[in-house]
């Protein structure tokens, strides 16, 4: 749950971008960082290994104004996608309020998407959390590659593979061109804040 500070009148909300390695999570945050520079007071923090892969996580704070007199601070995180970094993914999922699942639309990545989603569910279960009860948005990324004659998974296939049971909102996007990146972000913020509002009204 989000952290509410009644003295400073501030709420910290944790949103995690999850998904298979190389799917475009870091690129999403880099785009947001560029696009909303004026609202981001701090530098984007990224812990990388040699070769530009996310080792630990990326972290980006965004102030979105106030609700019921509370300043809302959104904290975006990405997880490292590579299979061997599961311990780190679990750390980042602690206290998560909302999740964007960034799936890779490339035909070759179909299995990796499915496995990453299973891994997310397992990791949440180890915290006694249920993915179907956490604000969630699917982003089907890299749709721009269609224009480069690269075989992409049809939208229906991705929906069937990943979202058939969860029935969460979804967007087709391109993190590299920025297409639907801001919309994905707005969607997850609005769902997450929606569930928070009740709590603030009770304060």
């Amino acid at each position: 749950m989000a952290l509410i500070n009644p003295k400073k009148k501030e709420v910290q909300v944790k949103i995690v971008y999850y998904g298979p390695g190389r799917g475009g999570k870091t690129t999403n945050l880099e785009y947001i960082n560029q696009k909303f520079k004026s609202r981001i007071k701090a530098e984007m923090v990224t812990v990388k290994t040699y070769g530009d892969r996310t080792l630990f996580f990326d972290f980006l704070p965004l102030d979105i104004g106030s609700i019921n007199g509370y300043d809302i601070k959104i904290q975006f995180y990405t997880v490292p996608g590579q299979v061997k970094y599961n311990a780190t993914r679990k750390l980042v999922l602690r206290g998560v309020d909302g999740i964007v699942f960034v799936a890779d639309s490339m035909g070759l990545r179909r299995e990796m998407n499915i496995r990453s989603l299973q891994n997310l569910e397992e990791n949440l279960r180890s915290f006694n959390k249920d993915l179907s009860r956490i604000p969630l948005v699917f982003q089907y990324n890299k749709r721009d590659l269609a224009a480069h004659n690269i075989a992409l998974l049809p939208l229906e296939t991705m929906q069937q593979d990943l979202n058939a049971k969860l029935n969460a909102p979804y967007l087709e996007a391109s993190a590299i061109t920025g297409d639907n990146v801001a919309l994905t972000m707005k969607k997850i913020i609005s769902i997450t804040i929606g569930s928070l509002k009740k709590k603030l009204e009770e304060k």
Partner: protein
Amino acid sequence: MEFTLDLDRQQIEKIEKILDEELIELGVINVILLDLAGNVIINLDNGSTQHDVYSLAALAAGNFGAVSAMANLIGEQEFSLLFHKGETDSIHFSKVTDDLLLLSIFGKEVSLGFLRLKVSEAVRKIESLFG
């Protein structure tokens, strides 16, 4: 497992008072009480810094988790001293409860031994608030 604790205004003020008296007044530059999700619960400083406390908290929570996992790998429950020494400023971490960490940033004027003493004093007082 919920990581967030729901503190009211009064509890926050009590903790701030402890941290101020035990640490800031003794020359500590900046103290941050954070949870293991990386949230900043309390941030106090001596008025002459502008650290990016939200990023510090995110990294501190991750770092603490990573070091705890390392401890487990060699058969330890945890490492009791977590300390990063810098040229002028250093960082000390201390576990308060299972979900809470206290991070202190201090300069050369404060000795590590003295700081550890004061931190454990503060931690003891905070623990007693949660009874």
